[in-house]
């Protein structure tokens, strides 16, 4: 009886993992397709589509745009989120609960609605569609996250250490830079990393408030207009590879260090 349960469990897991991996495996396999259509039969392997991406100027520009937008908007999100979390955690302000709710509210609204809101607002005030607009949108969605993570880490223990520092004569900004920030390092890093992840792959806001300069997901979207194309496969596989390597790097180097 137990053997039957174990076999059915194993079968279920295999089926489900198969389902989860199927599209990505197909994607990667046919990115090495020789012919024009990324569907069976497989006549590769060929790297020509990867070469095509690397030589695609628009694509490469979109890629660097994505990186810039992600880095800058995430940095802004972390800084704003940290300042907000610090002031709410350290100083008793009236309506603190309400302010917390207000700052985390964007987490509850669909990106599509935020995107539309920004589009209409920018349109109303004559703000041009641009990478800056995308960046602004990304701060809107990421800052609440940073705030929430950092606020949750500013507990009593942290507070006491800061009080000790003040007791020893440190000024406000010294406390922040010499004590609070270093102590919060893991949370700061986590929020920064999370923000980059969300910004990097974000589509709908970028799609709606950009025009000529676009980010990678938007550029990929326009590639979809040409239907099934191994070039699209190659881009997707490359993004996958980069993410994989990045996480591996983090896991091995950054997290191993903190664990030892």
């Amino acid at each position, binding site marked *: 009886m137990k053997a039957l349960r174990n076999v059915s469990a194993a079968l279920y897991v295999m089926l489900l993992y198969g389902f989860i991996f199927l599209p990505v495996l197909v994607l990667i396999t046919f990115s090495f397709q020789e012919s024009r259509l990324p569907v069976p039969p497989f006549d590769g392997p060929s790297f020509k589509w990867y070469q095509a991406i690397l030589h695609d100027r628009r694509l490469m520009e979109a890629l660097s745009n994505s990186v810039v937008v992600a880095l800058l908007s995430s940095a802004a999100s972390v800084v704003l989120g940290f300042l907000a979390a610090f002031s709410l955690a350290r100083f008793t302000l009236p309506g603190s609960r309400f302010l917390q709710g207000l700052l985390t509210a964007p987490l509850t609204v669909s990106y599509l609605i935020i995107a539309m809101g920004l589009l209409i*607002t920018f349109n109303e005030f004559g703000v041009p569609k641009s990478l800056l607009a995308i960046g602004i949108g990304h701060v809107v969605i990421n800052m609440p996250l940073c705030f929430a993570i950092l606020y949750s880490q500013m507990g009593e223990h942290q507070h006491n250490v800061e009080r000790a520092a003040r007791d020893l004569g440190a000024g406000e900004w010294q406390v922040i830079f010499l004590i609070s920030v270093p102590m919060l390092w893991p949370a700061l890093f986590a929020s920064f990393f999370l923000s980059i992840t969300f910004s990097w792959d974000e589509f709908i806001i970028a799609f709606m408030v950009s025009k000529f300069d676009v980010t990678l997901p938007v550029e990929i979207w326009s590639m979809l207009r040409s239907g099934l194309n191994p070039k699209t496969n190659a881009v997707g596989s490359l993004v996958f590879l980069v993410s994989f390597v990045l996480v591996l790097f983090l896991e091995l180097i950054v997290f191993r260090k903190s664990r030892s």
Partner: protein
Amino acid sequence: MLTPALLWTLAFFIMPLVIMATYSLWERAGMTLVHSLSLTNYEKFFDKSYFIGSLVNSIEVTVIVTVVSVLLAYPLAWILAERVPRRWQRLALILAILPFWTSYVVRSYSWLLVLSEGGIISNFLLDLGLTQNPVSFANNRGATVVGFVHFFVMLLTLTIYANLAQLSPSYRKAAADLGAGPMRIFIYVILPLTMPGIMVGAFLTFVLCIGDYITPQILGGNRELLLPQTMMLQISRRSDFPMASALAMILMAVVSLVYIACARWLKLDRI
């Protein structure tokens, strides 16, 4: 110190919502906007089957996706938490998330590679001789559901697993000690105690799914549109910001209702 964050939220989140709410009460007339307040857009929504139909479609699809994803995810979360040796659990979870590390857009696109005419499944059926001509499973509601379930099974597995993993083993022992067999332990103890994980995951699934434009646009075909697609059409094809705003308000209302329902449910069953 607090002010930059507050100002940002007010300027780029609150204000746009207020502007959208206002726009929803205006009307588009040619190239300009009629600035008198009226409920015409909302009336149009309830009148035209085109509009209200897309909301109904969205709700139907979202409900199906949520239910199917929960049913598929729970056993997987269970097996990962209970049957997989502790050492391998983290790896198993990472493996489950791995395929989603590619762009969300590309992920949806990859289902086209599987479901399209001439795609993987089509070829498979041809090779087996089960069909004479290439078959397409894409560009319909089913494909959209598959595309969504693919993503949300992963999400729900995570939330349910997290809930299962932090359950104290004492509950199981106590129930067994008092005479409950494995089935009754599950029904009376485990299932109720994992409801929070299910509800949180289901709520996230509902909200993310109903507001998603990408998956239905890539996989759904043109015959049946979901609400996000209708919204985008108002902007791209018709430049009808007021109508789009009204649809956005309606979407927010639907999500808020579901949120209230979930919050109330969770409070009733407070742990």
